[in-house]
């Protein structure tokens, strides 16, 4: 079967040696400002793909990708389409009204299944999926929000050897999501938006 060949091929190739990390950032209410702050502090030479999962209205066209792109003055900002390849140097934004998943061959898959904890996209779902494929080469970041999405996703990332970071609740407009993430993940670093950007620049 083609499917099987593809999978086994991927496994035996063993391209783990010089792998880029993937940064997964989840945010909800009030997270757009800290998100932009972090992204603005990353140099254009930052090659690790950044995958952003924001809660947003499901049937309203919003230009968040264009807003990010113009705020950063960068063109490599994209809402992925189904089976798009994950490429270095790109910032990806989960499309509205889909869950965003990652396949073994480092492509995106979209999924229009049930809401998870009232959310689609769900931060937990995407983080778990990224973590299953990229293992320790993942940095998960939970920004502010008024629910608890992201906590268990961050846990998967940490359990698979990746790094977990939570935005310092005192820097949040709505802090419930960061409290939930810290509660479930004692190992996670707690940093301000500036601190998060510093970590990404200096420790990956």
């Amino acid at each position, binding site marked *: *079967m*083609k*499917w*099987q060949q*593809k*999978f*086994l091929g991927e*496994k035996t190739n063993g391209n783990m040696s010089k792998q880029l990390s993937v940064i997964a950032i989840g945010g909800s209410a009030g997270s757009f400002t800290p998100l932009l702050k972090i992204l603005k502090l990353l140099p254009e030479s930052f090659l690790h793909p950044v995958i952003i999962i924001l809660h947003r209205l499901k*049937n309203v*066209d919003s230009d968040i990708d264009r807003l990010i792109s113009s705020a950063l003055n960068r063109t490599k900002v994209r*809402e*992925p*389409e*189904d*089976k798009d390849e994950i490429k270095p140097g790109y910032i990806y934004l989960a*499309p509205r*009204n*889909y869950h965003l*998943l*990652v*396949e*073994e061959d480092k492509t995106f*898959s*979209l*999924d*229009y*299944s*049930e809401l998870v904890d009232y959310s689609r996209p769900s931060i937990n*779902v995407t983080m*778990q*999926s990224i973590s*299953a494929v990229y293992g320790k080469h993942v940095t998960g970041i939970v920004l502010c929000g008024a629910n608890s999405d992201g906590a*268990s996703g961050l846990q*998967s990332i940490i359990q698979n050897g990746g790094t977990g970071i939570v935005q310092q609740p005192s820097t949040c407009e709505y802090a419930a999501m960061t409290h939930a993430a810290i509660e479930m993940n004692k190992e996670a670093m707690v940093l301000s938006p500036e601190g998060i950007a510093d970590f990404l620049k200096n420790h990956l």
Partner: protein
Amino acid sequence: MIDNNFTAENIKTLQQLVLQQYGYDFTQYSKASFERRIARFLNITGLESFYDLKYHLINNKEFFTFFLENITVNVTEMFRDPVFYKNIREKVLPQLATYPVIKIWHAGCATGEEVFSMCILLHEENLLKRSIIYATDINPKNIEHARQGIVPLNVMRDYTQNYHSSGGKNDFSSYYTASYDNVLIKKELRKHIVFSQHNLVTDHAFNEFQLILCRNVLIYFDKALQNRVIRLFYDSLAPYGFLALGIKESLLFSDIRNNFEVNEMATKIFRRKN
């Protein structure tokens, strides 16, 4: 959550079992979402292991029916992506209006919400009377449900909003009658729909259509299977017929993509060249 039982080997064994014993081929489904469906199914059934799952699938035909009902994604909405329906109304229906009989295929119709949306558009453009809408799904339970024309009441507010954002001018509630927790889409609107079971993975072309809608189904398939299905659609389209995909789907993995032209890129409406 996904546990260690989710080895490629286990998933493969399961897919082979289902294929050989029941004839349903899930081997080319997208791995990431298929695994989530299996995890969800184990959760629903309370089964502890892959071994138990296999045991029941081998020995219990009714259990397989239940598996089939839950393994595919059956989520749908009326007027999802309002701007898509606006484009269908303004750019596609005027073209279809030139045919004496309009044949439309909704491939992967789930519980029918998109089909009912289309019927409303056709009705408002005065085309419903000469339309035949074929609505198919892999899942017989979905077809049974869709045939009833029942939609949950608690989502009607969202759908009404979608309908108006798509350019709908009428009173949306004139299209259904509410009773308790559900609404019934009016029979008048539904009488031109032909429901039937069809599996995009294994079944073939069965008619010729001027418009095929298959939105958010290809996302569950790998690239090779997407290629197969696009060919099936090509073979099922009349010359210059329209193909509408989900907003995040594409023809990129089809080796006959050049046989289509783009009609509306943002809402993924394509047209067979000849």
